[in-house]
């Protein structure tokens, strides 16, 4: 009870405030711009020459659409409506592919995004941190320096180029991996071995490209974390005690270095809801990122809001969870 009152409730209040401010900002940004989804849709229709109409009929169409899209009324009314709907878990219909509900569009793509990005986040976290920890602990060795230089050089490569080069290499010149999609055409999604293997094969290049960049980042941050931990008394004392360096590296240095990285990992996993735009573009991989980009281009407020709200809730929630769960990882926070 005391714990609840003293810690959890204030933290929850802050959680809701942060979500509230975040969502409000995201709600307002597109609306304070000249973007008009109705005009966009109308234009797409007329520019594809879809409707051979007397111009006066287009006027009428415009009216009808305003009505249907729920864009009538002041921003304030729209804002209230938005929250009302949100509490029911409804993001409304998509405006660009009216009237498909935003939630079903998101639900359709989310598993792909989540599947790829969570695996990638965890893999690159593990690999990057282990390599970074080793390189930081043996900072004076030649190979450690080479590793650092490689990581420093891979990390800043614009991701698009990295992805494209991988694609050209392994899907075109050596056509080992497929160029498009989440699984082969003609296969039906199932839990068969064939299908799972197929999915992995399709996800391999997207994952590889993301992991390469991810490793670079974790490597660099872990290496610098390690270099401070190495100077801590308990590491020196372990050395004085004659404990072998491999053990010191893993049980003393990395164990302590990983703690702050857990928070970062949680934030990263919380952030997957906005998808990975470039990966999806280059590898034509299913996911939320491209949907969001299309939504932005088409002024699809509801879809933008849907994805952004999920993303905000995702990050805020994982920050909350990691705050609450952190004591499980760090005994220092548990007992003090």
């Amino acid at each position, binding site marked *: 009870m005391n714990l609840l009152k003293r810690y959890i409730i204030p933290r929850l209040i802050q959680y809701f405030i942060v979500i509230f401010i975040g969502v409000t900002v995201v709600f307002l940004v597109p609306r304070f711009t000249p973007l008009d989804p109705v005009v966009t849709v109308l234009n797409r229709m007329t520019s594809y020459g879809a409707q051979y109409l007397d111009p006066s009929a287009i006027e009428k169409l415009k009216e009808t659409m305003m009505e249907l899209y729920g864009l009538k009324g002041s921003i304030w009314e729209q804002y209230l409506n938005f929250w009302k709907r949100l509490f029911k878990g409804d993001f409304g219909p998509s405006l660009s592919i009216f009237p498909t509900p935003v939630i079903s569009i998101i639900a359709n793509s989310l598993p792909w995004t989540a599947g790829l990005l969570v695996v990638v986040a965890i893999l690159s976290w593990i690999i990057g941190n282990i390599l970074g920890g080793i390189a930081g602990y043996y900072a004076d060795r030649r190979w450690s320096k080479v590793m650092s230089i490689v990581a420093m050089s891979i990390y800043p490569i614009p991701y698009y180029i990295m992805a494209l080069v991988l694609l050209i290499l392994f899907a075109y010149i050596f056509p080992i991996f497929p160029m498009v999609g989440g699984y082969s055409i003609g296969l039906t999604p199932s839990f068969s071995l064939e299908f799972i293997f197929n999915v992995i094969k399709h996800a391999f290049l997207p994952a590889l490209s993301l992991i390469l960049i991810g490793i670079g980042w974790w490597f660099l941050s872990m290496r610098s974390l390690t270099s401070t931990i190495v100077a*801590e*008394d*308990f590491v*020196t*004392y*372990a*050395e*004085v*005690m*004659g*404990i*072998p360096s491999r*053990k010191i590296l893993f*049980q*003393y240095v990395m*164990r*302590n270095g990983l*703690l702050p990285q857990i928070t970062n990992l949680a934030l990263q996993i919380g952030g997957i809801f906005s998808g990975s735009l470039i990966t999806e573009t280059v590898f034509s991989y299913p996911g939320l990122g491209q949907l969001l980009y299309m939504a932005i281009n088409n002024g699809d407020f509801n879809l933008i809001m849907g994805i952004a709200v999920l993303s905000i809730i995702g990050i805020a929630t994982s920050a909350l969870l990691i705050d609450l769960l952190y004591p499980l990882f*760090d*005994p*220092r926070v*548990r*007992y*003090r």
Partner: protein
Amino acid sequence: MYALKVENLKAYYITSLYGIERKVRAVDNVSFQVMENEILGIAGESGCGKSTLLKTLIGLIKPPLSVIGGEIYYKYDGKEVNILKSSSDLKELKWKVFSYVPQGSMNVLNPTRKIIKTFEDVIKVHLNVTNNDEIRNMVGEHLKSLGLPLEVLNSFPHQLSGGMRQRVTIALATILKPKVIITDEATTALDVVVQRGVIQLLKRIQSEFKNSIIMVTHDMGVHANMADRIIIMYAGKLVEIGSAKDIFKNPLHPYTRYLIESLPKIGDKTIRRSVPGAPPSLLNPPSGCRFHPRCPYAMNECKEMVPDLIEVEKGHKVACFLHGKEVEKV
């Protein structure tokens, strides 16, 4: 019979930072012996080089600290081993022949592991025991003999009080029953009652195992309570060595005298004075006797020549021109 012998040890900090080079003569030409079955106290102000001396004794010589000259011999299986010569010997000696209790036990235990894990690590390395139950029994026995509760083994360092952590560290340092236990200000940050407990623990360990303890602290009260012999260091040099009785009853060096006389006592309100002036910089130590700028008896020769450590009485040595005219040979 000595357990540890230090000869002409010179340990300097040689640093080069952003283009400035400098040499701090933290330990300058120091020789002494630690006998078997004795408690040797080392006293001195902060910055006198006593911690540096300990670092070299446990082989923790990392840049910028480097040993310029001298020897450190440990007795091991009846042989003399110079740890400055061979790093594999040093590795062999660690924890079996000498162990170390550092200052500030807060930071020397891995904050994310339970205490027992650290015991396991130490035992696995040095004794080739791999069975965790066996280790647990061993450690349990040891703690029991030291009068420590067994629950500490399943605790994280942060769950323990400062005094308990310090005692756990002592248990860790004595688990392999080393010949020499080196402690660095092991009681300084503790409250008096706890300090008393820790001192008594060390004393009991010493009387049980008959090993040697090197006890570094600036607290003369602690030395008075524990030490068999005491070394007084000043600005990187030994100025006086003698039995506890000699030092307290008959201090020869003016610095030693100041140290003892400046201490207030409960029940005694007579005016006490500090040692005048401030400790010297080891970067540019004063010429001659390093104490001469603060010494009321300073003579001309004190400013120019360095007095050698000479034996005035049996086992009582002092480096002061008031007591002998020998000049140190470099």
